[in-house]
Every structure is written in C-alpha cells, then in structure tokens.
C-alpha cells in the first residue's frame, strides 16, 4: 500500500479514537469541564501533561533545531525540561492545595484584588493566544505535508476535531484524548529513531547510540565535529552563542515553562497534593523520553546529510533528496557550475526561504529566484530532520504514516490544552468572577462551551492569517510567562509578606519591560531599527533570553513596593499558611 493510503488509514483510526474518547468522557459540570472533576490519576495526568507540553514544534522541529545549531540547541533541551523541576518543587503542590480552577484564581485570591486577577487574565489570554496561533498553523502544515491538502484546509480540519472534543469534554475530554495522543506521538517518534540509531551505530538506544562509534570506529560526534570544522562551520559540540546568552535563554525558557497557564492548570486535575508532585515527575519522565532522543536524531541526521550531499553530483543524489526538493523543503543552486552539491556555512538563499520559479535547471533541479551571494549552494528546511528520517532509514510506508499521525497528535493535544485555558479564562475568570458572580453552574458550563467555540474560531483565524509575531512565539510566550506569572506565584507561596501592591506592580513592570524589549529587538516595531540590532542588545542578551531579566525586574519591583506598603490582611496570610500544608486538598476544591 502507498504512503497516502496508509496515512489516511492511520490518521483516520487515531481521529476516530480521539472522538470516541471525547464522547465517552463528556463533562457534566463546570468542575469536570475546568479540571476534569479533580479525579485524574497522577500517571494519566503525567501522560496528558507530556502530550499537552509537546507541540508540533517539539515533535517535528526540535531535532531539526538541534541538528542545525549543535550545542546552542541545548538551551531548548535544558530549558523545556528544567522548568518541570521548578513546577514540581515550587508551584504544583501548593497550587493544587489551593484548589481552584485557574492561575488568575490564585493570583486574584492570594493578592485579594480584582486588578491583580485582571492583569493575570490578560497575561494568560495573551500568552495562550500567541502560543495557540502557532499550533493551529502547525496542524495545517502537518496536514499539508502528509495528506497533500492546502494548509488552510488542514487548519479547518484541525479546528473541527479540536472543537468537537473541547466542546463536549472540556478538561475531562482533553485529558483522556491527550493520554491517547501521547502514546501515538511517542511511538511515532521512537520507532524511526531506534532504526536510525541501529543503522548508524548498531546500538538500538538512540541516547547511547550518538555517543558511540560508527562502522569505521570513529566516534560519531568526533566525526561530525571534524566534517563541520573542515568546511568552515563551528564544531557541532561548540556552538556560537555567548555563554551569557545561553544562560539567560535557558533560564527564560525554564521559568517560562513553569509559568505557562496551560501547564500549571494540569496540576489542578489530580486528587491530592502528593499526586501533583508525583504527576510532575511522570510528566517530565515522559517528556524526557522524547527530549533525550531528539539530540541523538539530530546528530544522526546532520552527519548523514553532510556525508550524503557534500560534493555529490546532483544526478547521483538519493531519492529522498529530490522528493523533499519537490515539496520545497530542499533547494539547490549550482553556484559554481560543477554539477555537485556544496553545503557550506551561510544562508544559501536571500531572505528566509527559497522562492521557487517555474521550470528546471541544467541537472533537473528546481529553479529559485533568490540564491544568495555565499558559496553555500544548499537550502535545507530543518523540519526535514524528523520528516525524512523513516525514508532515509528505508522504513516501510506504514511507519511514515505513523509519523504523520504522531505530528498531528502533538499539534492537536497542545492546541486543545491552550484552547481550554482560553475558554476557562473567558467563562470563569472574566464572566463569572467579574460580571456575573451568581450565575448557576449549568449556565457557567454553557458559557464555558461557547467560549471554547469562540476560542477555536479565533485561533483558527490566526492559524489561517498568521500575524507577524507568530515566528517570535517562543520569545514572546515564554518571556511573558517568565516575567509575569512565575514570580507572582512563587512569591505568593513563599512570602507571607508579599502584598497586593507589590505583586501588581511587579507583574506590570516585568511584562512591560519584556514586551518593550521583544517589540524593539525582535519585532522591530518600536525604536530606530538601526539601533535595534544584535550589537545593541542590553548586556548581550537576546530577546529570547530577556524573560529572565523581566523576571528579575518583577521580583525586585515587587519586593521594594511591598516593603513600603502595608502587609496583606490576616485571612490572606492564613491562605498562605494553609497551602503550605498538604492535607485537606480534596475539600478545598469544593468551593
């Protein structure tokens, strides 16, 4: 059977499974809709959190980012896993004990202020919308890659599926579909990885494989370092970013991870405080399986690419190369006219992507209109690292179809988790808490469902018409979460003295300075572009890493302001006393 047929069959089966789970786990109350009734086992929550966390970018993009940035890619590996240690040790157990539905719930109650709640809602909506726009686009891209449909059609299909189970099941439906989605995505990621590792080194465990030697007895990493330095690249294990920048980016990603509302909210769904700790452990374990495999795939793919293409005549190139050239993920221009491929440092094209024009050039390669002046002849889209794996390893068609299903599972599970945060923010934090305090549970549930529909439509709109800032999702979403929620929640738990004035001014200061920095240095929306280049970065910190500075500013402002204003009232100090003691969490959720 062909790849297409297999893809339709496997994707069809997984979608039927997700919808079946959604019907079986319909939510009947707001508590079920918001936090799955608080009855999810730590293991199931760990699986769901892992699927929620790992997006299309983790599944398809991560290995590619590392393959093309070597040591510099470590910021994502450490940043997106180390945050779970902070979650498990500093946030999750206490927020679970607090026992409400959302992050703004905690901020609003702990800082006895509707202003604080509103700041938190706005930040939560902003972070989630930024993030989800990229996910819906991701769903569309995955569809278009594997099923040969337009990206926009893919977005519509994705919207329909997510809508179905978010509308019916809320958190309950999402949780159990995420459990299924984790199984699909990890299987789809690991099977090709194991085969590739076997092929490259004879070791079936990729994590060990990339530290061992190939058939020629040379360690794989040494070989890759050698290949790269010979051609003028920086050695794979060295990296080009400054130590300061690596430090700050890693920190921003860690604190951002710990402050992302769609991750935090998952820990409200388990029955007890100790379950919250345990499920954070499971979540990181399941995430680590993929995150420790990705750097191995990266090394295999990069080595394979360098060895296969370097100075190889285009006529003799393997078929996967021309296949991905046809989809536009690879482009080759014969700059020196020798008919062979030269893969060298520097971008092969002007701008970000090759612009293909009609017709074929001398050797049958596709023509592009924007080759650059560098000697590098080859453009490679980094997504290819994971996409082309099964073909490079010569795996059967059904495994290629499985990778498609895995990519879709990763994109859908993350989109659904984010959409739930958005709909909860609207129905619970805005409508219920600000405007209609005494609406019945039934009405609130209806509003929650309608908000979910609205959220899907808005997210779909952004997926089809991606705003300019989607490319900066990482810097924005993590920077904002790190500079707003993380400090506010940590101080809310660990300092009894932190008061309303301190927390609000801290959050606003952190958000403001981070937004300013990203708007200026990443998006170039404000300020003179000529004084907003990498040379002008403060202390050499890139916009991706600036969330760390925003976080420090938040802490500093909050501590100073709270020192000059009156301490929080008795009953709030009691809340803090209370969340530090694990027992009695079950009752707290019944509010």
């Amino acid at each position, binding site marked *: 059977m062909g790849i297409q047929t297999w893809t339709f069959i496997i994707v069809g089966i997984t979608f039927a499974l997700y919808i079946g789970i959604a019907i079986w786990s319909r939510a009947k109350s707001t508590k079920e809709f918001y936090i799955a009734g608080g009855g999810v086992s730590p293991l199931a929550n760990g699986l769901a959190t892992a699927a929620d966390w790992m997006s299309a970018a983790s599944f398809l993009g991560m290995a590619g980012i590392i393959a093309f940035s070597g040591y510099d890619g470590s910021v994502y590996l450490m940043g997106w896993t180390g945050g779970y240690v902070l979650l498990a040790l500093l946030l999750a157990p206490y927020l679970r004990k607090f026992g409400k539905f959302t992050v703004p719930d905690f901020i609003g109650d702990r800082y006895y202020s509707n202003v604080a709640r509103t700041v938190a809602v706005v930040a939560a909506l902003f972070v989630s919308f930024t993030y989800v726009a990229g996910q819906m686009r991701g769903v569309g891209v995955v569809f278009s890659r594997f099923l040969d449909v337009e990206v926009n059609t893919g977005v519509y299909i994705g919207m329909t599926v997510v809508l179905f189970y978010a509308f019916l099941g809320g958190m309950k439906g999402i949780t159990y579909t995420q459990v299924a989605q984790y199984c699909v995505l990890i299987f789809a990621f690991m099977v090709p990885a194991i085969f590739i590792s076997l092929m490259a080194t004879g070791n079936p465990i990729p994590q060990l494989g990339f530290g*061992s030697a190939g058939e020629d007895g040379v360690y794989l990493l040494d070989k890759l370092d050698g290949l790269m330095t010979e051609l003028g690249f920086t050695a794979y*294990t060295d990296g080009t970013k400054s130590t300061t920048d690596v*430090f700050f980016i890693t920190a921003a990603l860690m604190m951002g991870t710990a402050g992302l509302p769609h991750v935090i909210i998952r820990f409200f769904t388990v029955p007890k405080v100790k379950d919250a700790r345990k499920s954070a*452990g499971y979540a990181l374990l399941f995430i680590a399986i993929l995150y420790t495999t990705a750097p191995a795939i990266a090394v295999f793919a990069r080595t394979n690419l360098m060895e296969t293409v370097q100075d190889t005549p285009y006529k003799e190139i393997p078929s996967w190369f021309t296949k991905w050239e046809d989809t536009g993920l690879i482009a080759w221009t014969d700059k020196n006219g020798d008919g062979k491929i030269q893969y060298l440092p520097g971008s092969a094209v002007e701008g970000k992507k090759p612009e293909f024009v009609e017709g074929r050039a001398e050797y049958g390669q596709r023509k592009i209109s924007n080759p650059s002046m560098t000697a590098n002849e080859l453009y490679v889209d980094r997504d290819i690292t994971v996409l082309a794996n099964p073909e490079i390893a010569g795996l059967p068609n059904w495994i290629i179809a499985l990778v498609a299903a895995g990519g879709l599972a990763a994109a859908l599970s993350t989109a659904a988790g984010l959409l739930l945060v958005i709909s909860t923010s609207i129905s619970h934090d805005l409508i219920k808490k600000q405007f209609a305090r005494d609406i019945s549970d039934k009405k609130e549930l209806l509003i929650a469902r309608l908000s979910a529909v609205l959220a899907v439509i808005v997210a779909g709109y952004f997926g089809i018409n991606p705003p300019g800032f989607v490319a900066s999702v990482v810097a924005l979403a993590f920077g904002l979460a790190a500079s707003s929620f993380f400090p506010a929640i940590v101080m809310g738990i660990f300092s009894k003295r932190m008061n309303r004035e301190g927390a609000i001014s801290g959050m606003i200061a952190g958000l403001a300075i981070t937004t300013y920095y990203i708007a200026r240095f990443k998006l170039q929306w404000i300020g003179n572009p000529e004084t907003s280049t990498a040379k002008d970065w403060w202390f050499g910190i890139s916009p991706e890493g600036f969330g760390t500075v925003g976080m420090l500013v938040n802490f500093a402002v909050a501590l100073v302001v709270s020192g000059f204003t009156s301490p929080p009232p008795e009953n709030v100090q009691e809340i803090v006393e209370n969340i530090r*003691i*694990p027992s009695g969490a079950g009752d707290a959720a019944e509010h």
Partner: protein
Amino acid sequence: MDASQRKKYWRENLKYLSILLTIWFLVSYGFGILLVDELNTIRLGGFKLGFWFAQQGSIYVFVLLIFVYVRLMNKLDKKYEVNE
C-alpha cells in the same frame, strides 16, 4: 497541627528545596553552560562531558530530582501526619 509544628515542617521542606535546587542549578547552568568548556576536556565514551550534560545528563538528573523530592516529601508528610 500547631504553629510550631507547621514552622518545623515548612523549614524541613525549604531545606530539601534548597539542596535539590542547588543540584538542579549545578547540572544545568553549572556543568552544561558555565563550566562546559572545562568539562569538555573530559570524555565520556564518545561524548565530551560538558556537551553530554547540556544535552543528556542534566535532563536525567532533573527527572531523578523530582522523584527524590516526591519520596522525601511523602516521608515528611507522614512524619508530621499531614499525608492523605
């Protein structure tokens, strides 16, 4: 649970946190970033040690840290009879 017991429980918790977070900092920011060049002179099979910590080792330690914390806290909760 009276106030002094609460305080003691909290202080022990903070002690665990500071030890575990020190290790957390050391394996990632320490071994993986600040000391990476020094550690890269040491080999672990085909890996340079600093590179290994940045792309593998730190993640393994993170997972371990959480499960160690789970164990420590479960014991502590029992000791102070605040477990469920």
